[in-house]
């Protein structure tokens, strides 16, 4: 009998600790599936962050090294420079990437560091209990913005992907979501493309994934998925923000 569905080899047979309705487990699986499809399990190194995904090394069956909060891109840089033929990715949340680790992600992108960042944007600090994140939407209530985020006191949501796309070192940046089966499939294609760019030595790649956090958004899982479509994507529009491959292809067509 032909096996048509199973657990990816790059995932351990361990139950996730994530809350029901959380996007992390979906993204873990997608990353693992892509690694399997690319036949890279044996030469991949992942860098989990501080945050909900800190225990990713219990789930991924690949070599991993934990980074201090925000330092994933720096640590991944060190690994990648020593092992340039390996697939090296940093897995980070919004606080990790766009607040405490802004410098590390910005400069890794600017150096055109040949790594991939899997960026989970759920608009809150999930692990610490739902505090305001750099990506918290205006008006969104969190434990540290009880009346809702106001620009006057709290500033604006950071569109870090748009910022990194401006840098000449970045090769591929796309914003996706995992709130519907179609979105999940699209995200998987995006991760595959990012990893492929890395293996082709094209430079820095990042996939931002709008991911539901029903627990801290205080919603049902279904409502959380709807909220992504109705609110989050207004602030963080989905789509490709940078793709040097497409640009090159476009130029070829013109000439």
């Amino acid at each position: 009998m032909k096996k048509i569905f199973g657990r990816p080899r790059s995932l351990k047979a361990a139950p996730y600790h994530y809350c029901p309705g959380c996007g992390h487990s979906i993204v873990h699986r997608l990353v693992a599936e892509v690694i399997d499809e690319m036949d890279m399990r044996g030469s991949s190194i992942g860098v989990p962050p501080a945050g909900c995904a800190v225990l990713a090394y219990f789930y991924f069956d690949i070599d991993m090294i934990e980074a201090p909060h925000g330092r994933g891109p720096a640590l991944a840089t060190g690994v990648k420079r020593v092992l340039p033929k390996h697939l090296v990715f940093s897995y980070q949340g919004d606080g990790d990437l766009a607040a405490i680790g802004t410098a590390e992600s910005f400069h890794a992108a600017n150096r055109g560091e040949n790594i991939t960042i899997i960026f989970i944007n759920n608009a809150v600090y999930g692990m610490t209990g739902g505090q305001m994140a750099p990506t918290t939407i205006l008006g969104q209530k969190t434990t540290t913005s009880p009346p809702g985020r106001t620009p006057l006191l709290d500033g604006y949501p950071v569109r870090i992907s748009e910022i990194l796309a401006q840098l000449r070192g970045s090769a591929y940046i796309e914003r996706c979501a995992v709130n519907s089966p179609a979105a999940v499939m699209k995200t998987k294609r995006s991760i595959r493309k990012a990893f492929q760019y890395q293996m082709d030595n094209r430079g820095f790649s990042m996939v931002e994934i709008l991911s539901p956090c029903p627990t801290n958004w205080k919603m049902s899982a279904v409502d959380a998925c709807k909220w992504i479509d109705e609110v989050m994507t207004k602030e963080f529009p989905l789509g490709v923000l940078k793709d040097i491959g497409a640009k090159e292809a476009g130029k070829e067509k013109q000439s």
Partner: protein
Amino acid sequence: MQGNCVIGEAAIRAGCCFYAGYPITPQNELTEYMAENLRKADGGVFIQSESEIAAINMIAGASAAGARAMTSSSSPGISLKQEGISSMAACELPGVIVNMMRGGPGLGNIRPSQGDYFQATRGGGHGDYRTIVLAPATGQELADLTMDAFDLADKYRTPVMILADGMMGQMMEPVVFRKPKPRQYPDCYVLKGAGDGKSKFIRGLILDAIEMEEHNWKLARKYNLISRQETRCEIHEAKDAEMMIVAYGTAARVAKGAIRRLRGMDLKVGLFRPISLWPFPTRELRELSEHIKHFIVFEMSTGQMLDDVRLALQGFANIDFFGRPGGVVPTPAELSNVVSRRYPQKDAYVDRFLRFKVVEGPFGP
């Protein structure tokens, strides 16, 4: 060769193939040396990082991937690196960190100082850990101890710090580079992809308290082993000494000059120079106190190593202190004046300042 460059050359010869750093005076020549020379070496990687924090994390990554890695900075930059040093200690990653100390606290100044002794020898970052700290006092030692630092880091899988100051970094001295030992580092600690086998992970986060406690005790046992095996010191002119200066690094050089003057005044002064600041050579110092009862600690700080000397000698000998913080380097003349005034008066009839014995004392010499 200039001190900073000596460290760079010794590191490259020891097989360091990864360096990340951020500019800060007085150690820029080391970063520049690595930029120039490490990139020429086969497989050598030099990265000018965006911050000290990024630099230490880059070497953590490189170290995990199996490279001999180094970063360097000076006092304020080392404060920034502490997060990463603590993390490397927790994850048991080898690495070499050079601190060319300058005046502090805060931004302080860029003059030579020894104000980071506590930070270096007490771990420095958060959590229950130590780093091996080596304090060179000559150009030759900068070379030798840099090579040793890489070996020690591998042997104990822990970050090792070279603690010197702006003076050591800027000074030029002739140096002979010895042949480095071949690297011995088991493959099982290196991340290089799972291949067809089992995957591994390196982590410092251990949520279960009992498991974390066990990890702490494991580290503690390692630190105890280091304390027993890796103390280093130099004992100079101690045979007939009645008083010992205890000093390290640049201060020890000043002390040697002062001792020449003091000996000229017939004052029997020697030098105890810790080379490993952690582990501190407590046993060696206490052995000295069996026949020498007067010690004066001399530091370019307000008194930090003084604590370790007290822990070693309290109740065994008299402990005095002289220090100049803030980037002041006292001359041997100044130190010899201080020491001569505090030299133990054994005999009421001897005027040592005239270098002339008046009468043999009734209680013998």
